[in-house]
């Protein structure tokens, strides 16, 4: 199971905890994780990425294994530790605004 960490405001919107566990088909990528996340929590559509283009919202970042994957292609495979559920895939509100 993929461990996805949601930022506070999206936890509130989804009515979830900090971590949601998702079954994600291989290959595990940003896109496949977000597809699974939005299928489980339809109210999150549009809050992480554009509903039409799939582009990441400007002030949202994706972290995993102490690396920033935000600028990677949404179809790049994510690290094996994320696939194995040993590391979290973190959706983060960018540090902005002081």
């Amino acid at each position, binding site marked *: 199971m993929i461990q996805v960490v949601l*930022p506070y*405001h999206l936890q*509130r919107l989804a009515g979830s905890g900090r971590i949601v566990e998702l079954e994600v088909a291989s290959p595990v990528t940003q896109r496949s994780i977000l597809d699974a996340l939005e299928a489980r929590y339809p*109210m999150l559509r549009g809050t992480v990425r554009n*509903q*039409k283009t799939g582009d990441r*919202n400007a*002030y*949202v970042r994706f972290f995993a294994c102490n690396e920033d994957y935000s600028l990677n292609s949404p179809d790049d495979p994510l690290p094996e530790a994320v696939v194995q559920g040993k590391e979290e895939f973190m959706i983060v509100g960018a540090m902005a605004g002081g």
Partner: protein
Amino acid sequence: MIKVRVLVGTRKGAFILTSDENRMNWEVSGPHFSGWEIYHVNGSPVNPDRLYASQTSDWFGQVIQRSDDGGTTWEAVNNDFSYVGDPGTHLYYDDSQKPWAFKRVWNLQPSFTDPELVYAGVEDAALFVSKDGGQHWQELEGLRDVKGHMWQPGAGGLCLHTILLDPADPKRIYVAISAAGAFRSEDGGQTWAPINKGLRSDYELPDPGADVGHCVHSLAMHPSNPKVLFMQKHWDVLRSDDAGDMWHEVSGNLPSDFGFPIAVHAHEPETIYVVPIKSDSEHFPPDGKLRVYRSRSGGNQWEALTDGLPQQDCYVNVLRNALAMDTIKECGIYMGTSGGQVYVSADSGDHWETIVHNLPPVLSVEVQVIK
């Protein structure tokens, strides 16, 4: 028993203030959607327990919330505001053309007859409609045909911030956009015409009398007389007696004719209210005194309403959607400020009380009277 419910949108959440018809003792509920900007909360005139809220964030985009129990519980509905086709470009601050891009919903206006029918005014400026209570949104793209490439963002963005529905004619809709002007549709939003004749925007537009490009801040009408419109423009307060075909200035003796909201008394169609602000570069009241101005003659002659409002060292702003009227016999007026105060006058503006002192900056105020 009559209940008054005030719907307040702020920079950090929504608040619901309730009272009986005396409007003296208030209960405060909130923050709802804490931490999010709530640009507008509005209720259906047909079913007052049906509320819509625009919940928005620079980080997480736009969410539309709907309640069927007067704001006790909420459900996120559809937030897909996709423009029809390629919306092209609009004018930008630096005179370049910038692609149209959806940012947020400024205004939600439920129909007078159908609680499932609701209009949304958005940034970048467009009008959307939902016929199923927010489950699907469709742009009324004919509006952009009115020289959309010449519209430009005001200081708050290229926003469609005001929607007026004509209670006598469900096909007639008015909208206002900063900075594009006022527009009217006679066919339910399919086609539009600019209604900006008589507006003058000296020092703001190269052609001060252009048919589009004016920074209209808000519009108001009285439901009994829907062809008479009132406007607070960037500078100037104006009225039209022919559904917007021609405007004339009624700023009269106001200490400043810059401001954001304008509103009409619930029972006196010629009694109107504005909140003068010193200037576009100083968004606070003249002389540090928060004064609502009332005209009982439809403009030109204005009196200051000050009793209960701060009359020294006050430097708050009152935004365009933050002035509302109730429909109780002794008309109540509600005003929210950038300092987080919400004021009420239960006597048409003669005396004011503070309902809450320290909310986040107030973006919008609406009021419902529930019988």
